[in-house]
């Protein structure tokens, strides 16, 4: 199976829809250790991307780039910029191709995680969305079936959320509430989990 602009558009539409229903939960989680806007941010990202989905170029890399633009336009939230950064890294890898084999998904996710680390000056273990993406990258190594990839990634993210729960947030706004963040789920990791659910439709 392969990633095409068409399948990408379907997947992203699913993500956008899921964000509308997840907004409240994400705002609530973010409010505990941040500024409580993550749900709003995800809705903005979803709607922004939705607007360009009908009009994506066949070049998968260029299609990713168009989504990056849509996102940097609608939000300056950390998470939006990290998502844009991740998609930009995918755009570079996919540029010039109309089909990208799903077997590359692990590498795409790993590349995204690296780009996000550089952007956010964060490390693995800092309890951010990067831990979730890294876990997903590792879980889908060797898989090339869409359903299987989503299932494995979802399970891996659930697991890392669980494992990280009792550790402190070490970067972002939550850093200043590090002690308070122990025992709480990182909102960015949960948002990634909801995105996977959205992709699964």
């Amino acid at each position, binding site marked *: 199976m392969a990633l095409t602009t068409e399948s990408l558009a379907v997947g992203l539409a699913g993500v956008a829809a899921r964000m509308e229903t997840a907004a409240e939960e994400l705002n609530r989680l973010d409010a505990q250790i941040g500024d409580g806007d993550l749900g709003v941010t995800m809705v903005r990202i979803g709607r922004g991307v939705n607007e360009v989905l009908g009009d994506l170029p066949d070049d998968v890399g260029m299609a990713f780039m168009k989504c990056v633009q849509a996102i940097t336009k609608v939000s300056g939230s*950390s998470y*939006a910029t990290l998502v844009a950064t991740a998609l930009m890294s995918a755009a570079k890898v996919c540029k010039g191709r109309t089909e990208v084999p799903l077997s590359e998904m692990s590498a795409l996710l790993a590349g995204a995680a690296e780009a996000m680390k550089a952007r*956010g000056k964060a490390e693995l273990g800092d309890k951010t969305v990067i831990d979730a993406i890294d876990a997903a990258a590792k879980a889908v190594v060797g898989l090339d079936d869409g359903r299987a990839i989503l299932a494995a990634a979802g399970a891996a993210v659930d697991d890392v959320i669980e494992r990280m729960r009792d550790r402190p947030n070490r970067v972002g706004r939550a850093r200043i509430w590090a002690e308070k963040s122990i025992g709480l789920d990182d909102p960015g990791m949960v948002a990634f989990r909801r995105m996977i659910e959205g992709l699964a439709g």
Partner: protein
Amino acid sequence: MKKILNDVYSYVDEMLVGLCAAHPEYYAQVSEGARVIKRPEAPIAGKVGIVTGGGSGHLPIFTGYVGRGLLDATAIGDVFASPSADQMAEAMRAANGGKGVLRLYGNYGGDVMNFDMAGDIVEMEDIPSTTVVLADDVASAKPAEAAKRRGVAGMVYAFKIAGAAADAGKDLAEVTRIAQKTADACRTIGAALTSCTVPQAGKPTFEIGETEMEMGMGIHGEPGVWRGALRKADEIAAEMMDILLADQPLARGERVSPLINSLGATPPEELYILYRYVKARLDDMGVRIVMPLVGRYATSMEMAGVSFTFCKLDDELETYLKAPAECAFWKV
């Protein structure tokens, strides 16, 4: 919420419309509703451009300092929220007079990520750019982790001095060096007496008792060093000076520009009471005071409280600090 506004969602846009309407000689919108403000004459051919950006609610920071001998353009977010990378890229385009652009702003996670992203975007358009990030809030991290500190009122000095260097025709590398040198020379400590209210939140950012103050609190209400009973002016000033001097000692014969800044509601009367102490102690130490600033230079809307910034000067920085500059909020 005791704020004068029409709608929490239009707070920033209406503010920018009013600002540009009141001072068209200083501020122009790049395009309606874009929340990118530039000097009307920008880009200025042959001059290094300087852009900043960050959340609204800190006037004169950020937009206020767009002007001659200061900044060329700025990207403005919602109150206390980062503008988007897209806006920042737009500000950089508006500021680029062919000699490249310095991004000069405060060290906040979201702002840093977005400005880096914006740098990546305009790089594709062949606009060379550099970054200097202010991290002057000594209360926000230990000296060993100084790079993690937040940027606060030290920005005022960086805008002024880098702006003067760009005005003097220095190239991007040189303006960047001077901006970084200024950033390195600034230390700030704040103390809050009351909270402000973010319009979209609708209630005070934090609770604080009727007779309490918080030393070291950040300009968005980030937790400080201690919270306790409100102290006397001289005690507050003494502790704030102690903290600044411990982080950056000042020896006899050295010079400093002190900024005694109101976070918003604290009136100038009380700033002058504080300055009285600062001046006497610096005189006592044999430190020379250059261009003391007392007033509202970097605020958090209606928050009561003050910050002290010490910008340690040498000949180069002093010359640029005293060079002419002009915006609606400050004329040198």
